[in-house]
Every structure is written in structure tokens, then in C-alpha cells.
């Protein structure tokens, strides 16, 4: 007789990989085939996760249509099932999945639109952290400044895309329509949640490089280099003051 662990392993496999051949012996038919009964659980799992992804990626769903979205999410669920019981955590890898998903290779902007939607989703749900008081920086020795590593608000997200992602997103909101020039240029976009409302805005290249580097836990020195590479006249003091004014910095430490 199978152990409970073996049963659950086989059951999970049947749900994820559309197979039920091994399960027949330990399920009762009762007038409805055991495989059809397994299908009910699989449908529940697939439909609920597809619906959850549809809420996280409404623009992707609209761009590809409900039928293709159901197909793509079914494949995604089978290949990358959730690992967290909190469904809001699910789907972080959906953009990468789309970039490798051959059936949508004719829509090369899709993965970046998904990345953008994911930033919006994460910004809408995370907890705010208390902002760092500017006085916390006052005691830091100037010679240590380059080794500072800042923590930004969890809602802050950064996307650099060769596609006009924000324009695509805008014309695909409910009740809206329109055309986007796909060759119209990319975006350097910041997502954040000032005053509790999720917002996004495009940033000048140097500011984007600076903030995105800090958000990625680069040192202050490395973030400054990244910004100065884009704009030799980058005003780092003003950029730092603006981050503090935005209440965007929540912590600071010295790189070991």
C-alpha cells in the first residue's frame, strides 16, 4: 500500500502534469471515472491560479486575449507552480516565462509589460517601512560615504525597457483603446507608492541609474558611477536630497 507521502506526491504530479494513470488503483470509480474526479481538482487549481494571474496581469490578458492567457497560464502553472501559500506571492517569474514562451515570441514587448504590471502589483501590496531621518546621515564620516548601502521603500521598483511599456499599459486600461508606436522609444520608469497610492513616472537616465542602482543594493559610490556615466553633470547631492524628501530611504548601512 502506498504511504501518504507517496499518494500526495503522485496526486500533485497528476494535477501538475495532467496525468492520472498511476492513481487508478487507489481511487474508487463510483460511476465517475477516477481520472474525471482528479480533473475536478486540477481544474480548481488551474482556474484559481489563472484567475489570480489574470488579476495581477490584466494588461497581458487583454493584449493576448482570454483564450491565449488561459493557455499560457496553464503552461506556466505546470512548469512553475506556486511555492508560497500566499497567492499574491505567485507569478514573480511570469515575465521571464513569457520571454521564453515560443507561442508569444511575435510580441517581444510582452515580458516587459508583465514586469511593469508585476512592479505595480508588488507596490500595491507591500508594507511601508518608516523613512530614514536625514539626521541619520549626519553622523557618517565623509570618507565612508562611498561604502554606504541604502535601503529604499519596498514599493520602489525600477524598469528599463526598450519598449514603450507605460504607453502600452495606458491604452490597455479598462474602457480605453488606442494605438502605440512600438518604435517610439523605451522607458526608464520608477514605480512607487507615495501617500498610499501606487504611481509611476519616467526618470532622466542618470536619475534612473542612480535610484535603480541603490534599489539593487549597490554602494553609494557604484550608484554615483552609474549615474555619472549617463550624465557627467549629475548632481548627486540634489538626487540624495530628493530621495530623502520623497521619504524613499528607509535604512542605511556600511558595506563591509
Amino acid at each position, binding site marked *: *500500500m502506498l*504511504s*501518504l*507521502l507517496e*499518494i*500526495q*506526491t503522485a*496526486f*500533485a504530479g497528476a*494535477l*501538475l502534469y495532467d496525468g492520472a494513470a498511476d492513481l487508478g*488503483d*487507489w*481511487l*474508487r470509480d*463510483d*460511476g*465517475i*471515472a*477516477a481520472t*474525471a*474526479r*482528479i480533473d*475536478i*481538482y486540477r481544474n*480548481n*487549481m488551474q482556474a*484559481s*491560479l489563472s484567475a*489570480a494571474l489574470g488579476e495581477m496581469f490584466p494588461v497581458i490578458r487583454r493584449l493576448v486575449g482570454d483564450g491565449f492567457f488561459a493557455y499560457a497560464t496553464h503552461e506556466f502553472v505546470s512548469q512553475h*507552480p*506556486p*511555492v*508560497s*501559500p*500566499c*497567492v*499574491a506571492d505567485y507569478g514573480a517569474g511570469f515575465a521571464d516565462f513569457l520571454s521564453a514562451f515560443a507561442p508569444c515570441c511575435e510580441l517581444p514587448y510582452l515580458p516587459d509589460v508583465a514586469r511593469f504590471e508585476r512592479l505595480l502589483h508588488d507596490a*500595491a*501590496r*507591500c*508594507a*511601508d517601512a518608516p523613512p530614514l531621518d536625514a539626521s541619520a546621515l549626519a553622523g557618517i564620516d565623509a570618507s565612508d560615504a562611498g561604502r554606504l548601502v541604502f535601503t529604499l521603500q519596498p514599493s520602489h521598483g525600477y524598469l528599463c525597457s526598450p519598449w514603450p511599456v507605460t504607453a502600452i499599459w495606458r491604452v490597455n486600461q479598462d474602457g480605453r483603446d488606442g494605438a502605440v508606436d512600438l518604435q517610439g522609444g523605451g522607458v526608464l520608469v520608477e514605480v512607487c507608492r507615495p501617500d*498610499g497610492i501606487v504611481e509611476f513616472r519616467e526618470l532622466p537616465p542618470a536619475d534612473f541609474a542612480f535610484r535603480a542602482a541603490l534599489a539593487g543594493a549597490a554602494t553609494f559610490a557604484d550608484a554615483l558611477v552609474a549615474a555619472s556615466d549617463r550624465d557627467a553633470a549629475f548632481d548627486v547631492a540634489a538626487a540624495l536630497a530628493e530621495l530623502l524628501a520623497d521619504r524613499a530611504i528607509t535604512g542605511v548601512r556600511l558595506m563591509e
Partner: protein
Amino acid sequence: MLDTSAVHAGALVGIGLRGPHLVELPRRRPALDFVEVHAENYMDFGPAFDRLMDVRRDYPVSLHGVGLSLGSADGLDARHLARFRDLIARIDPILVSEHLAWCIAGGVYLNDLLPLPYTEEALDLVARNVARAQEALGRRLLVENPSRYLNFAHSPIPEAEFLGALVVRTGCAILCDINNIVVSAHNVGEDASAYLEKLPRAAVQEIHLAGHSVQSIDGRTILIDDHGSPVSDEVWRLYARARQTFGAVPSLIERDRNLPPLDELLAEADRARVDHALAA
């Protein structure tokens, strides 16, 4: 005309609170004794959690888990238990409940409440998991009877008895989901009323009421526990029996799909309240 304010002293009646109604509820403050939320939807402690804290000022909150996976042969996820404990600490819920089911295998979360064979092995395992969860969460858990779509060939312990043994071994309580009894009884060929009578009466501390849909498979009907429609007549009828059997325990209207305007849920809650008063 019934004066519902006079019968309010009976069982507590609440609704399952879902995202779209989170802001509306504290603004309107309708007469409800409590609300219940899915614990996993608030574990980010972000804006949704903040809105739940607004609700918490006006209503007691019950936390209903869907992801602890009390039936997992792998054991429980320590990180998830810790998040659940943090949520309990901040919400101070009146009830904490989970399901007699599993949803995690090999680290994969399957997002459905999957069935267990009711064997001595499963009883040992679930009892161990429930005991660990109760210890980690610092709360007595209510364990809910699941909706079922299949029977295992080897499942010698009737589900109600399995729950009874769980109560004896762990001191947990029972959340009796009337819709799940109706759905499972139909799908696996059991008697819903008899099931109700076999549950350990004193341990039943909450009742769930919900709707289901009907599908046809291989020429046979299957009831799907989709929480997508109003409470069915059959469920209301069994609810009347449950009240006689279990007394004035908190009753909850659940709806997850096709979420109607708040007023429709409140009307169903009123019906449960009035039914309760008539039964008293």
C-alpha cells in the same frame, strides 16, 4: 414581522469579507456580529492589512487559513506558521480555522484543498500537524470538513469519526461547513444528515454556509464547491438541523466567486440570524 434586534442575542452571524468590500464595510457599519477573512490575503501587512485593521475597529475578525496544509505528509511550513502567528498577534481574532485537507507536496503549493485518505497513518499525521500548529499559533484551531470529489479505495475511517478522533487527540474544535457536507455527500455517495449527527457535537464551534454549482460528468451530476452563488435551499435545510444539533454557534455566509453587492451578503446573513431565532 420579526424584530431582528430582539433575536440578536442568539448565535453570532457574520460574512466572509473579501477585498471589494473591505472599504465599504467600515464606512457603512451594517449590523454584523463578526467577519471572517482568508488569513493568507493579509500576510503582506500592507495596505490590505491596514484596511482590515479599520474593519477590526468595528467588528471582531475570524481568521480562516487556506494554506497551512494540515494534511501534508511533509509536515508544516515553519515560515508560513510564523507569518500566521504574526497576523494573529496583530488581529487578535475571535476564531482561527483551517481545513482537513492538504495543499502542499514537495514544497509546491497547489492552491486547492486536496483530499486525504482517512487511515490511521493520516490520523497520526494530521493530529501531529494540528498539535504543532496550535502550539505555534497559540490558539485552538477549528478544523473544517472539506468538500470532496473522490473516495480513496482504502479509507476505512468515516470522515466525521476522523474529525472526532482529531478532537480527542489534539483538543481542536470543528468548523462544520454545511455546504461541504452537502457537496461531499452527493459526490461520494453519503448521507448528509447522518454525517451531521456523527460529528462531535460539543466541538463544533462555527458553521459555514455557502453555495455550490452543479456540473455533469459522464452523465452524472457533480456538485462543485465554488462559493459562487447564494446558499442553496438544501444547505439552508441542513443548516436548520445543524442548529438543533450544535446550538448557537457562530454562523458565516461565504462567497468567493461572482461576489455580489454587500447588501446581498447581508441579506443572507439576516436569513441565518432569523432562522436561528426561529430554531431557538
